[in-house]
């Protein structure tokens, strides 16, 4: 501690406060930093490693202990440990630095993994590795938002990444059979949604195998169903059009 600290002011250190309001009263407990999250996820099983003391406070920093009556009215027990575990499980807490850091790190990894799973290099039709995606995400200075789902963020990242590297959502391979009557009309409507047509057979009915962007699937699905009144069929041949197996470069 530096010499400038006034001697009459004692700072709380290594303390994380968990608060809970119950029965109109505020209760606080003093915990160690970086431990509450582990307790909640079940990784930490020793309560003494989480709690500084088995006491319930009204205000931790002032050292005001909660009254026995208030405790029993709020928690239905006078057992302090029991009250502490209840507060630990449900109270609001300050997320400490390392907890936040590890959470963001996990999310970042998770986003990169999702991106790597969904995308391919359009030239080789092969996925990128997670490490490469992570590096690319760092290059475009992507920052994780803790309150948004990783999947949502992953979709945003894909759009941003497209500006810096050759990346693309892996295409879906679809096959649909349309009645001849609707075929011609629908084809025009479908055209903007389809990336490449692999196979087209228009004899009695229109049969097509094509690659689409997964984002368009819902539109195509809806279009076919509504326009043909359930007569057309749609079938997914593969979710991800990627090269399989190892390839030797020669």
């Amino acid at each position, binding site marked *: *501690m*530096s010499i400038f*600290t006034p001697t009459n002011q004692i700072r709380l*250190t*290594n303390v994380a406060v968990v608060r809970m309001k119950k029965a109109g009263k505020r209760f606080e407990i003093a915990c*160690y*930093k*970086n*431990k509450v*999250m*582990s307790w909640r996820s*079940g*990784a*930490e*099983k020793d309560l003494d*490693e*989480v709690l500084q003391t088995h006491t319930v406070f009204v205000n931790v920093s002032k050292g005001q202990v909660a009254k026995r009556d208030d405790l029993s009215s709020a928690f239905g027990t006078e057992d302090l440990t029991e009250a502490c575990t209840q507060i630990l499980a449900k109270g609001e807490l300050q997320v400490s630095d390392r*907890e936040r850091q*590890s959470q963001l790190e*996990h*999310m*970042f*990894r*998770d*986003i990169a*993994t999702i991106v790597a799973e969904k995308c391919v*290099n359009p030239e*080789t039709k*092969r996925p*990128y*590795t997670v*490490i*490469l995606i992570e*590096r*690319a995400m760092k*290059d475009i200075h992507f920052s994780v938002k803790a309150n948004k789902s990783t*999947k*949502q963020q*992953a979709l945003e990242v894909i759009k941003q990444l497209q500006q*810096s*590297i*050759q990346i693309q959502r892996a295409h879906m391979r679809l096959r649909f059979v349309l009645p001849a009557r609707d075929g011609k009309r629908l084809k025009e409507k479908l055209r903007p949604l389809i990336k490449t047509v692999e196979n087209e057979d228009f004899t009695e009915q229109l049969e097509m195998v094509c690659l689409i962007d997964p*984002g368009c*699937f*819902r539109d195509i699905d809806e279009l076919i*169903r509504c326009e043909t009144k*359930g007569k057309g*069929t*749609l*079938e*997914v041949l593969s*979710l991800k059009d*990627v*090269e399989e*197996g*190892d*390839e*030797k*470069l*020669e």
Partner: protein
Amino acid sequence: MGHTSLEKIIALQKKTPHIRNLCILAHVDHGKTTLADCLVASNGIISSRLAGKLRYLDSREDEQIRGITMKSSAISLHYTTGNEYLINLIDSPGHVDFSSEVSTAVRLCDGAIVVVDAVEGVCPQTQVVLRQAWLENIRPVLVINKIDRLIVELKLTSQEAYTHLQKILEQVNAVTGSLFTSKVLEERAEKDAEAQSSCTENGSGDQVYDWSAGLEETDDSDLYFSPDRGNVVFASAIDGWGFSIHQFAEMYSQKMGIRSSVLLKTLWGDFYLNAKAKKIMKGAQSKGKKPLFVQLVLDNIWSMYDAVVTRRDKEKVEKMVTSLGLKVMSRDLRHSDPKVLLSAICSQWLPVSQAVLSMVCEKLPSPAEISAERVEKLMSVGARRFDSLPEQTQELKKAFLDCSADETAPVIVFVSKMFAVDSKALPQNKQRPLTQEEIAQRREQARQRHAERQAANQSAETLKGTELNMLPTALSVKTAVEEDNKEHFVAFARVYSGVLRKGQKVFVLGPKYDPSLLPEGCSAADVLPSVPHMACCTVDSLYLLMGRELEELDEVPTGNVLGIGGMEEFILKSATISTSPSCPPFTPLNFEATPIVRVAVEPKHPSEMPKLVRGMRLLNQADPCAEVLIQETGEHVLVTAGEVHLQRCLDDLRERFAKIEISASKPIIPFRETVIRPPKVDMVNEDMGKQQKVAVIHQVKEEQTKYPEGVQVDSTGLVTLTTPNKMATVGVRAIPLPEEVTRLLEDNVELIRTMEQFSLFAWEDKTLDINQKILENIQEFKVKLESNLQGRKWRGAVERIWAFGPRRCGPNILLNSVEGYRRPSVWQCLEREKETEKAEIRDFDNSIASGFQLATLSGPMCEEPLMGVCFSVETWDMKLSAPLAQQDSIDEDSQTAEPNIDNQNESSDTHETNASSASSNRSRSGAEAAGSSVDCYGPFSGQLIAAMKEACRYAFQAKPQRLMAAMYTCEIMATAEVLGRVYAVLSKREGRVLQEEMKEGTDMFIIKAVLPVAESFGFADEIRKRTSGLASPQLVFSHWEVISSDPFWVPTTEEEYLHFGEKADSSNQALKYMNAVRRRKGLYVEEKIVEHAEKQRTLSKNK
């Protein structure tokens, strides 16, 4: 000797009997390149003063820095002793990692100089190179190098040195001998096998074993090295001297009046000079006399070193110099470093190049003397015997043996490797001294430019104009630079027959080319029919290889080593070039080291991926031993022979081929997840269930909390789960598949895929034609499955298979055990003829299958695919679908149910609001009915998929789960001394030895072991380091193996606590792997952020 002119060499190239193609082979640091330097210096290409320091043939920068040779490079030398000889010398690397370069060098040669360090003796690589020379049937000669170290460093007396040299010679001969015996034994074994088979055919019981055949009969005396045979030279390349016994024999025969032939025989060996009788007597050792070699040869050298280096006795030195009749420059005499004086004297007295080159010319064969045996070996690829080759091809053998440079002789050239050359180094682009006119011209140009510039300065308003003019010039300069940087590949080759000319049309035959496939009668002039692995091209340019430089040639006659330019599009790594299409491709090179060090390579900037891929392609072409591949995961993997080789490959990629920053890392290691039968014993090998379980100290999460609401798990592992809208309930049980079944499924992926396709078509009332062969295979596959799935549990299981997964063809099975539900079997392609008895497909059949596919694709442990798990659907109740099923036409429903998987996946990422639009995603008649099944939980089929997937996952978790690791089989060749260390490395890396046997006729052991892929990073390097290079491993992926430890295991019994302590996280390999994968994927890992709460820094940050 002055610099040999190009014309001279061209003239010499035509005299085939006077050509010697040879390479220098040795262990690393035994002085190959130094010796090569001395030989190069004898031709005046470099100064003899610099010989041994310059390392002329190490042209790469990193070769000079590291001080080891990394590639083989060739140079043509000229040597005169009565006859004029052309010597094509190839220097090769000695490090194990580059032994592929040695193979490429050895193939092109007829002879080899094996260099052995006089102090270190025979080293691992010496054995390897001797074996390589042996396998290629080329004749070796021996140079014992660094004799000066015996004098200066070890301070041996001449007598001791003699015995030391004798020992080394014995070691070398022992290696040769063992090669010979193993060959003889092999031949005998073959003969025996043949005899045995013929015996059994005849049915005669008595076999006569002929033990005497073999070693004694075969004459091996000409294989060994011995100074009196003239195939050994003693040398010190660094000091520039070397001698063979011949030289001394001749010297002393004049002096002492003894016939040189007598001296030659007695100079090496147990002979001494009886001074009184003036006779040479036998038995020097027993009589305690100095052997002749010591007295006449070594003593002289010793006294020379003593005078020059140790005592620096000027007078004595002068005396010696004059008595030897040499001239030493006074500058050298006065030099403060005695080594300079020494080498000045020695290189005149006993020049090493003289000794070595004369031995080479005498003892090594010329290209014309190629043996028939070697030709046959070269021409017969793989297991094919020479006799089985087409007749035309066999005729070419004569061309080989003739080795004639006639116009009519067919051209046969073998390319052993491709090497990249900077376009600057090519002779076309080389800077020549300018002629007078050119200089004048340039001066004129410069003057004009100067004038222009002045004009531009004067008129300021024209500034803009000039700027515009500047732009295109800048651009053109840029393109020129790019062109310059292009790598050119030169093929490292040798002509075996005929004359290769510039502009000639030739066939390029790949290593897999088969002459017997060729249609009759076609020649190079014809328009080519497309034959696999064959191309036709014109020879662009021919080069004479002169170390770092290339000289352009117009034609190269037979027997010469050369470089061919402009072949990069036709040749990948090695090839055979011929004018006759019936020429067989040469046998592939035997590589002593196979590539085993794997790393994943990535560009620093992800946008530079295409550059990396192009660079890796070039690297693959330029390096005979490197392999590059793209894996399914998208990783670019580089496989190299060792760490040093890896470094070189990465440097090459960075600086020459890709020219980008790259990073290399450990490749991703795949795992599989599986379940096993409940184990009978616990971790301390006690019977389960017998002892009392002690109270669990930490509160383990209660069993029920593992499963959320709506999931019921009974004690036998049956999981029942209801969809959120309470309409359907599925009951699933996970059962481990027997190992053989898993293997069977893995091996027959293609068949399963065909069957799957058939069923798909069958749903649409179409048929897919499958040929008879495949049908038979499927039938066989089914029978095998049935035979492996025996027992009560599996009764009728094969018929009830619903699907395979993941991706519809994996090693997991979905079983239909629902009572009263008969669906068409997956085997319907087999029973096409039979009327399928009213098998009906229930509604949403496909949703169940899709749920299974998703569940098997990523398991609950670490999202890796499952393997060897059978999910048996035991109950499947639907409240709603019963009326629906009757209305719906079956086929359509089964098809349309599928897109819902994607709905499920996409719903969260595209629009979170799962609109009712998805609901009507059903077939026409079902549309209205299905509409009712839509509620707040989304489409019903999607719900069912999710429910099935979850049910599978919980069923999986209800059984003892295990991780499966990919395993390598590892074959290690090691000598007996290092066996213990090999075992230590293996056991440290969780390897398991399967067998160990001794190779017949040698002291090498062959160890077979399995090793987890996860532990293999750095394995090759460690094993080489620990065994000083005496063991060399080879790794091949073999199979998946269950890791026996349970990743979720915690100690529960008294004994286990005693053994492992409370946490027991030290020994759990499976947990380590699982957590590593989870961490890599960003999944939740159960570990504390801070281990000890009290030990955190107790100061807040801002104080």
